[in-house]
């Protein structure tokens, strides 16, 4: 079975987000990680491979630093990696998905996995778009996946419960928390990762030079208002409670 995992390098969950002088998100000095939902996807791919054999290819669209995230997946046990450098192209979900789909269409695949969303922009679109372009079904927010005889049975989260679906392969699945517990890369895995193939491609290599441009452009970014200091209401309990209720109604407007 051939499995492709789309993964993205994102800011560390603990990173402090700031804006640079031009109002863009400051990337300097921020530690980067593999998008946690993509880690579930990588882990699931490895488990499927361990069960039924096959090959796991991880692919990312990003600048050269994204190699670290790919290498982490290789250290966990993926077989090969592809990094597509978008160069100067402005990316949105459409552009990223177009590039990914083009790269994946040159591969053999039975299953395509990805995180259901990236923790940075959180748009939850890319994997679905890839499926659309490749004309294969997509199953989102999967918490359990079983594959047998050319089809997959997946459990997915729906409002207030879960849904069991069956789908023919090839198909795209997006991973939700709970799908699995990702392994730590082993030390041998880390040492072997650098010997595994890491193919670097440009948009030119994919025949997409000048062909992809973002359809959605970010106009500006803003940071949330810093949290205001709390208010302590002095006085006797009964009186303070009355004052509190008043403030909650009139000032905070929550009751």
């Amino acid at each position: 079975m051939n499995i492709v995992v789309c993964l993205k390098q994102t800011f560390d969950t603990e990173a402090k987000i700031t804006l640079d002088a031009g109002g863009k998100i400051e990337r300097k000095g921020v530690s980067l990680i593999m998008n946690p939902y993509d880690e579930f996807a990588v882990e699931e791919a490895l488990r499927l491979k361990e069960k039924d054999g096959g090959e796991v290819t991880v692919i990312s669209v990003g600048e050269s630093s994204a190699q670290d995230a790919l290498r982490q997946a290789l250290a966990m046990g993926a077989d090969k990696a592809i990094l597509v450098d978008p160069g100067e192209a402005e990316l949105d979900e459409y552009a990223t998905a177009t590039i990914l789909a083009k790269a994946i269409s040159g591969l053999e695949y039975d299953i395509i996995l990805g995180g259901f969303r990236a923790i940075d922009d959180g748009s939850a679109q890319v994997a679905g778009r890839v499926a659309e372009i490749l004309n294969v079904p997509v199953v989102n927010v999967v918490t359990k996946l079983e594959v047998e005889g050319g089809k997959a049975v997946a459990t997915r989260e729906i409002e207030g419960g879960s849904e069991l679906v069956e789908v023919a392969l090839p198909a795209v699945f997006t991973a939700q928390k709970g799908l699995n517990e990702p392994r730590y890369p082993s030390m041998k895995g880390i040492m072997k990762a650098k010997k595994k193939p890491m193919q670097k491609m440009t948009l030119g290599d994919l025949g997409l030079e000048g062909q992809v441009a973002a359809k959605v452009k970010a106009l500006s970014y803003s940071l949330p208002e810093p949290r205001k200091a709390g208010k302590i209401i002095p006085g006797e309990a009964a009186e303070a409670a009355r004052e509190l209720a008043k403030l909650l109604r009139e000032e905070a407007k929550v009751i």
Partner: protein
Amino acid sequence: MDFNLTRDQKMIRDVVRDFAEQEIAPRATEIDRTGTFPLDIINKMSEMDLMGLPFPEEYGGAGADYVSYCLAVEEISRACGSTGLTYEAHISLGCMPIYLFGTQEQKKKYLTMLCRGECVGAFGLTEPEAGSDAGGTKTTAELDGDEWVINGSKCFITNASYAKFVTITAVTDKTRGRKGISAIIVPTDAPGFTIRSSYEKMGLHGSNTTELFFDNVRVPRENLVGNLNEGFKQFLKVLDGGRVAIAAMAVGIAQACLDASLKYAHQRVQFGRSISKFQAIQFKLADMAVNIELARLMYLKAAWLKDNGQPYSKEAAIAKLFASEMATRAALDAIQIHGGYGYMKEFPVERYLRDAKLLEIGEGTSEVQRLVIARQIGC
């Protein structure tokens, strides 16, 4: 000159940090209080190939370098000193003598077991009457036919209760003083070999510290490690490497002191302000950060020299001396920053002090490090 860690080194550090934060740190308080040896954590570390990190794959190791190993020691010790020492003693004292001086067969048999984490490694050098003066070893090993017959005792030996064999030093030629000492591998189930772990320690409660007693213990002749009567030279080499790792361990504990102190200083309010706004507190934190950075650079340099096949005895002693003394100071300051709370077990900093202090003693006391350094600079 290049101060960057390699990709592998960085990934190893980050993965071990993540593992230590998730799997070890939450257990550290309980390990200290109950004195339980964290066997389950050691098993997880084996699954990650940490137990053979700096050894070749042909012996079940991961084939990483010494820098990577020291980074791992730092991260593990930052989470839990006891687990840090267990790991350090396993690699630096348990595996190293066999890796450096063992025959091919010994490496295949014993080093492979250790690297796979089938048991932990231990090295028995210290005796009741031979501590800093390890050349004063009293334990004897006499050849009787094809067997060594061992008599004597060892003290303060880390990990032996969880070992399948211990490499020990013994006098094999009484007429030659320190040139009559050899290293011998002794299986822990050999008749006449008793291991007792009844010490009540100040800290490192989850580290297994034992006494070894040998009463006519017989082991095959081929259990001799390396050449006959070269035990003294061998353990000096082993200790050189171990000192770099002890320095890394000290940096880990000191870093934990800084992490805890910084967090507490931000939270604690006195005189209407967070105590982190007081210069007296800031200076303590700044000094800690300075010392940690310097000690880290020094252990990395010593480890780098070792990886590059250059002499590093002096650097190892410098790193160990500076790092261990600064770690104790950092722990004392961390307690001071925490005030009365720091004196209580509710906060981890008193544990850091109890754990850090050993590092000024084990694998050569601070006084011995100064002797080594003085000799190296030509005194």
